[in-house]
């Protein structure tokens, strides 16, 4: 993950940008002809009863097979290369430092979209205030109830964890542990604690503390059983000595 060059927070949107966005938030009705055409097409597809056939991807089946074969081949090659690297250089820093970047899940194909969770309107996110304006959160301290303040806290958490991420990139796993400990102290129930624990686990593996890493992994699996980071963590554990 790229971090802010200056290491500072994003300045807030100026009023002009906010005004521009406010205009764009209003959905203007489309030209009637466009609407009528789109609806007629949709209705015709339904009437023809060929939704299932039409909804398949425009990529031909043969193309999918080739794509699948190519992907499998690349994955095999990558695994072999990774195994070779691990055998050659067991130093912790040789492994991929980009835990969270790698753990980002690419959007799945159009055919596999998931059902959405309930939607609710929220206040627009305020930009991030300077770090000094946000008091350190101690365990047990009540959290702000104002949604905007909560988002500010999250950006502060994000900034802290970005430091940890930078340290992972440098291979400075001791620093990662220090930052994750500081995060835990300040934001014990923070919204990014899942990412913090993943970073901590990464650091433990990097430091060669396999036993602690496995314990941390078990806790992570217990606390975040549906985490999208689980697969990546399993891979890391599997590749740890």
């Amino acid at each position, binding site marked *: *993950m*790229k971090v*802010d060059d200056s290491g500072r927070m*994003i300045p807030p*949107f*100026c009023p002009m*940008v906010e005004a*521009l*966005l406010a*205009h*764009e938030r209003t959905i*203007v*009705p*489309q030209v*009637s002809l*466009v*609407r*009528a*055409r*789109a*609806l*007629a*097409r*949709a*209705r*015709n*597809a*339904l*009437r023809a*009863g060929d*939704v299932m056939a*039409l*909804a398949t991807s425009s990529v031909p089946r043969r193309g999918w097979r080739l794509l699948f074969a190519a992907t499998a081949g690349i994955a095999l090659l990558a695994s072999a290369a990774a195994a070779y690297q691990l055998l050659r250089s067991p130093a912790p820093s040789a492994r991929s430092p980009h835990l*969270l970047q790698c753990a*980002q*899940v690419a*959007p*799945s194909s*159009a*055919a596999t*979209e*998931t*059902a*959405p*969770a*309930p*939607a609710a309107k*929220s206040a627009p*996110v305020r930009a*991030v205030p300077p770090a000094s304006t946000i008091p350190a959160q101690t365990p047990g301290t009540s959290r702000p109830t104002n949604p905007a303040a909560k*988002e500010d806290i*999250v950006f502060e958490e*994000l900034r802290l*964890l970005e430091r940890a991420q930078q340290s992972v990139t440098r291979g400075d796993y001791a620093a990662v542990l220090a930052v994750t400990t500081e995060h835990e102290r300040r934001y014990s129930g923070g*919204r*990014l604690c*899942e*990412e913090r624990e993943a970073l901590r686990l990464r650091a433990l593996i990097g430091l060669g503390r396999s036993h602690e890493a496995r314990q941390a992994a078990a806790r992570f699996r217990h606390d975040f059983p549906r985490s*999208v*980071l689980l697969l990546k963590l399993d891979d890391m554990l599997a590749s740890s000595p």
Partner: protein
Amino acid sequence: MGSASLTGPHSAPEQPNHGVRALDREEETCLHAYQRELDYLLRTLKRLGVGPVDIEDLAQDVFLILRRNWQQYDPTCSLRPYLFAIAFRVASSHRRRRWREVPLPVVDGPDSALCPDGLLEADQARNTVLKVLQTIPLPRRAVLVMHDLDEVPVQLVATTLSIPLFTVYSRLRKARREVKSAIVRMQERGAIR
């Protein structure tokens, strides 16, 4: 969200029924929902960088996917995030097929010469936002559009786009910075005042 009727002013012209079957209740419901959110969907596709030439085809693709997965949709939830997720994936897939992003040649809208001042200003603002959005890479743009324009909570953005919360915040932060830079550049060129 409004609740426009299928027989409302925007409804499609009725097609002659030459031996084709009538729609069942579920299909009617799905079509009704699609009709209700069609303006939003078309705007979303435009925000995601789909050109005017392709927009109706992609809207149709979104509808077909929506229909196919209609039983998975929870009607107690807002349809927009669900539609956005489909639109985002369809737009991404469309872009991959084209191999390169083609910037919008024309950001179309009502004829500004006919608009009163207020409408003209709003129209210009919307066009400016669309141009700015085109400068932001699609994954970050999706997060920005969902959260800052559609006002979807970050948790739901993460769920809808199947990405970690951490990533949502990172993308949002960077996208906001890119919005600001793009607007500054446009101001320097005199494109906006």
